[in-house]
C-alpha cells in the first residue's frame, strides 16, 4: 500500500518534471522545473530499493538520507518562495527568503549535519528506522535529526499557508482556486508533520500518508496553475489573432 503510494507520487512528479522540460529550455520559470525535479529525486531516494543501491555507492553510511534532507529543503525553499511571490504575500516572502528565513534555514542545515555526524549511521537502513535501537544516545540523536528535518518544511508551510488559504476564497479563475486549495492541503500536511512524535508508533503508516499527500498536492497544485496559464495564453493568442482583445467585455 505504502509502496504503491510512493510509486504513484514518483510517477506524478516525474511526469510533471518531464512536461516542464520544454518551458525550462525556453527559460520560463526554471525554478518550477527545479521543484519538480527535486521532488522527483527526493521521492525516488525515499523508496527502499533505490535507496539501498544509491547508498551502497555512497559508502553505506546513510549519507543518502542526509542528501535526501537537503533535496527536501531545496524543494521546500524554492516552492515556498515562488508561491509566496505568486500570491503576492509580502510577509510570507520575507519570512521565507528574508534574513529570518535564511537564518532559520542555516540553523536547521547546521543542526541537520551536526546531528547526522554525531550519530552512528553505519550500514544502509532506509528511513534510518532501526538506527535508534542501537543505543539510547543514538536514539536521541536520530530522533532529533528527524525532528529537525521536519521542522524546516513545517516552518515554510506555516509561513505560506495564510496566503494560499486566502486565495481559495477570492474571485480568481476556478483553476487557480483549485490549485490554491491543493497547495493549502499540501502545506497543511507539511505543517502537521512537526506533530509526528505524537502519533502512536503502531499508526506509522499515517506519517507516510501525510508525507506523500503533501508532495502529491504540492505537485498537482503547481501543475494545475501552470496548465491553466497555458490555456489562458492560448485563448489570448486566439483572441489576438481574431483582433478581439481590444473589445470591451
Amino acid at each position, binding site marked *: 500500500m505504502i509502496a504503491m503510494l510512493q510509486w504513484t507520487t514518483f510517477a506524478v512528479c516525474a511526469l510533471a518534471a518531464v512536461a516542464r522540460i520544454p518551458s525550462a529550455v525556453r527559460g520560463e520559470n526554471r525554478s518550477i522545473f527545479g521543484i519538480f525535479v527535486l521532488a522527483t529525486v527526493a521521492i525516488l531516494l525515499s523508496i527502499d530499493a533505490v535507496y539501498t543501491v544509491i547508498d551502497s555507492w555512497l559508502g553505506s553510511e546513510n549519507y543518502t538520507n542526509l542528501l535526501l534532507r537537503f533535496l527536501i529543503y531545496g524543494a521546500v525553499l524554492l516552492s515556498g518562495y515562488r508561491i509566496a511571490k505568486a500570491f503576492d504575500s509580502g510577509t510570507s516572502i520575507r519570512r521565507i527568503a528574508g534574513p529570518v528565513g535564511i537564518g532559520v534555514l542555516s540553523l536547521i542545515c547546521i543542526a541537520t549535519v551536526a546531528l547526522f555526524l554525531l550519530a552512528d549511521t553505519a550500514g544502509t537502513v532506509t528511513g534510518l528506522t532501526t538506527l535508534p535501537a542501537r543505543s539510547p544516545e543514538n536514539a536521541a540523536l536520530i530522533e532529533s535529526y528527524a525532528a529537525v528535518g521536519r521542522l524546516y518544511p513545517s516552518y515554510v508551510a506555516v509561513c505560506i499557508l495564510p496566503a494560499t488559504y486566502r486565495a481559495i476564497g477570492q474571485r480568481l479563475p476556478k483553476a487557480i482556486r483549485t490549485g490554491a486549495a491543493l497547495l493549502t492541503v499540501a502545506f497543511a500536511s507539511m505543517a502537521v508533520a512537526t506533530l509526528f512524535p505524537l502519533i502512536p508508533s503502531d499508526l506509522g503508516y499515517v506519517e507516510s500518508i501525510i508525507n506523500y499527500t503533501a508532495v502529491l498536492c504540492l505537485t498537482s497544485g503547481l501543475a494545475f496553475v501552470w496548465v491553466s496559464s497555458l490555456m*489562458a495564453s492560448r485563448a489570448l493568442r486566439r483572441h489576438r489573432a481574431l483582433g478581439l482583445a481590444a473589445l470591451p467585455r
Partner: protein
Amino acid sequence: MPLPAKAFQLWLHSVAPTASTADICRISGIKRTTLAQQLVRGKVAETTLVSISRALHLSPLAALASFDSFADLSSPPLPTPAELVSQIATMDLLRAVISRSSPAYGGYGDDGSSRTPALSAAPHATSVRNWVDSIDDGELRHRVSAATGIAPQNYSAQLTANRMSPELAVATARAAGIGFTGGLVATGLITEDEAGWPPGAKQAALDAVSDGELTALAGERLLSLGKTLRRQEQEQAQTQKIWENLG
C-alpha cells in the same frame, strides 16, 4: 420553486394536445435530455415554458400566468417609471446626458433629438441590481429575505452576478408591492414586448426625468461601473502575477 412537472404537462396538453415531446423539443430548441430531466425531477424551469410558448406563438406571460405561483400575472400593471429607467443601459443613460447638453458638446439641447440612437433592449449588464435599487425603499431586502428565507449575502451575490431566479424576482416584486413584469424583464426571462410594455415606454420614462435627476443617476451608474471595472482589473492583475510566477 420552478413549475411543478404535473401542472406543466397539463398546460402542455392544453396548448399542444397533439404534439409529442420530441416535436416540442424540436420546435422550441430545448434539448430532449434537458426536458426529460426536468420532468423526472418534477420541476420544470420557467425558461423552458417561455421557450415552448414562444415556439407555439403563445404569450409567455399568459403561459406563466396559468400557473399558481404566477397567477397574479394575468393582468399585469405597467412598471413604474423608475423601473423603466432602471432597464435603460448605463451607456444609453450617458448618451442621453450628452444628447441633452448644448450643441457645443455634441448635444441637441434640452429636448433630445430624433437623431439620438434608440435605447437598447432590456436586460442590460446590470439590469437586476438596477431594478432592485429602483424599487427599494430601504427595507426591501430584509422583507424579501424574511419572506423567502434567502440569506441577504446570497441575495446580494445574485444581484452582483446580474442573475435572479424568476421565483425570487416575483417574491421581490411582491415584497415591493409592484407588478411582476419589471423583474421578469430585468432577469431576461421575457422581453419588454412579451411583458406588454408599450413600445417607447422606456424612452418616455427617460424623457420625463429631469436633467438633475438624470445626471445624478448616470453618475451613480458610472460610479458603480467604475468599482466593478477596478475590481476586475485587480483580479486580472492578481491572476497575471500568479501565472507569471507559477506558469
